[in-house]
């Protein structure tokens, strides 16, 4: 009975191949979208996690809270003195290294006639080591001595500025001030808004002298002496900064000290929000596919009233007719689902929005199950309509 029913369903669907194809296309698109969008979500999470992992271990990031002020009502700012205090082994014995970070707003960076707007980071030599950045060529930020007009650039920046040949030693202008390229970072495959392949790092001292920057800092990157001392270091940082900024006894500190774990947690939360959003988009695509299938099945019931009447006259129970039309809807959706899975796997080999989708094996049966569910949802109403037709009314049609 099951094989015969499947054969009947296939024959009914093939009787109108174009209509059936268009109906299953909606489900195929939804199914492919599910695989690709879930893959993009996972790929994006994996990229973020790997970048956080690449930051190195035992790291802490200190940054002012966006709207926080000190007890005196002034806006809280990190400054050079904080770096010095935290580097003091007596005040913060669990802190091993501190890298100050000053994020410079997007400036005009040019070479010859090529100019681009790029943000830059003013920092000191430990930054590269703490971020686990490797140099592909040249030296680090202190190659030319304190205050030298040197820059370290991301792997793609020379090409972006139209620098042909060896970039080391070439000069680029940063806000009109010439800087010599001292080093080029190794490619790390990063993409997105903070593309490290296009990074521009300048010595902090040079930024102060040449680019009219004050002694304020955007954030600090610190390394604890060991993973075990991470908590201790965090407490020391809070204590030192609170004392320096007269915050002792304050109920809420105007800065945050984040460990790598909390960064990872924040990133994971963001990624899972993104994944949920993408799954919802895929679900919307599947719902649209279901609407298409339901429409086709309603038309089929209307066109095949006489057939339904004849089947009922021959002894088909309402359940038999219901099962027949439900089977057709499910078969249509499963074929669409299988095509969608194939297309989704194919599309996952492409880089989408800068992300290489990661197809989790679990998403394939999930996609097929979603197609099955779509078939059941889309087929129920038309199948019930068919099952409720009276035999004579249908035959007379």
């Amino acid at each position, binding site marked *: *009975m099951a094989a*015969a029913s499947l054969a*009947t369903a296939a024959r009914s669907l093939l*009787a109108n191949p174009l209509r059936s194809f268009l109906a299953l296309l909606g489900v195929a698109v939804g199914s492919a979208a599910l695989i690709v969008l879930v893959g993009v979500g996972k790929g994006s999470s994996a990229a973020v996690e790997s970048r956080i992992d690449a930051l190195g271990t035992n790291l802490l990031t200190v940054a002012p809270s966006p709207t926080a002020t000190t007890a005196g009502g002034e806006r809280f700012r990190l400054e050079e003195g904080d770096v010095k205090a935290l580097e003091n082994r007596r005040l913060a014995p669990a802190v091993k290294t501190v890298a100050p970070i000053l994020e410079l707003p997007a400036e005009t960076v040019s070479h010859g006639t090529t100019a681009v707007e790029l943000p830059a980071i003013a920092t000191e030599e430990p930054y590269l080591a703490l971020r686990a950045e490797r140099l592909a060529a040249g030296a680090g930020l202190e190659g030319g001595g304190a205050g030298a007009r040197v820059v370290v650039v991301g792997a793609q920046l020379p090409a972006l500025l139209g620098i042909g040949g060896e970039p080391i030693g070439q000069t680029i202008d940063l806000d009109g001030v010439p800087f010599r390229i001292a080093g080029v970072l190794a490619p790390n495959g990063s993409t997105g808004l903070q593309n490290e392949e296009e990074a521009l790092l300048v010595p902090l001292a040079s930024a102060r002298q040449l680019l009219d920057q004050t002694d304020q800092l955007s954030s600090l990157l610190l390394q604890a002496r060991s993973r075990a001392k991470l908590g201790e270091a965090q407490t020391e940082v809070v204590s030192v900064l609170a004392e320096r900024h007269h915050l002792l006894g304050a109920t809420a500190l105007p800065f945050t000290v984040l460990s790598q774990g909390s960064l990872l947690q924040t990133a994971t939360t963001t990624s899972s929000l993104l994944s949920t959003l993408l799954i919802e988009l895929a679900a919307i695509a599947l719902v649209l596919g279901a609407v298409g299938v339901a429409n086709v099945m309603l038309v089929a019931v209307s066109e095949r009233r006489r057939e339904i009447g004849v089947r009922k006259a021959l*002894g088909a*129970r309402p359940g038999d007719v219901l099962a027949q039309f439900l089977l057709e809807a499910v078969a249509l959706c499963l074929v669409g689902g299988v095509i969608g899975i194939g297309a989704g796997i194919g599309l996952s080999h492409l880089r989408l929005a800068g992300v290489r989708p990661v197809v989790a094996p679990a998403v394939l049966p999930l996609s097929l199950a979603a197609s099955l569910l779509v078939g059941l949802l889309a087929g129920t109403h038309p199948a019930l309509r068919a099952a409720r037709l009276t035999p*004579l*009314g249908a035959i007379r049609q």
Partner: protein
Amino acid sequence: MSGPLIELRGIGKVYVSGQLAVRALHDVNLTIERGELLAVVGSSGSGKSTLLSILGTLERPTEGSYRFEGVEVGELAEGDLADLRNRRIGFVFQSFNLLERLTVFENVELPLRYARIRPRQRRARVEAVLAALDLPAFAGRRPAQLSGGQQQRVAIARALVANPTVILADEPTGNLDTVATGQIVSLLRQLNGIGKTVVIVTHDPQVAAAARRVVRISDGRLVGTGGDRAPSATLSRPGEEA
């Protein structure tokens, strides 16, 4: 089994469409015994097809009692009615009503599928009935590849395959030429000869002449329930006396 096969008492049928109500049958009383060959005759719109639909449980009467083999049909649920149609009643329609996407074999097999009969048994029974009706050569063909007479023979094969008690034929020769009409009427008589109850609805007096009993319906009322008589031995040709 004792008692009549079919008993209709006070059957009425009213079709309602919006504000309009049309009475198709009035107080129909009819008893059909096992093994009868009965013709229901009447002009177009007289209610004879409605009567056949009620006999076949394709629709329910709005009033009266219908007992089939002593069972009150009005009390049966839809599923039970489907079983009754499947196991006890064979339909032959004027327009054949074969399913175009199925082969002759598959069309004939349909009632057995709904009776949940195993594939091997289904095949044997379909092959037997096709052989009895001289149709094996057409088993793999589609209905559209057959003549009208051949299609009606396939429809009769489909009506017979589940071994029903009664064959209900609604204008079975309405779409056929004279030669095919003769063949189909002869076939229905043969079925009656082997014990099947046959009810033929027709407006063609020559087809009715083949029946042992003729009942006439006019404006939804039975105007003559007919008595047993000897059917004409052969079908009259147009222009000949019945």
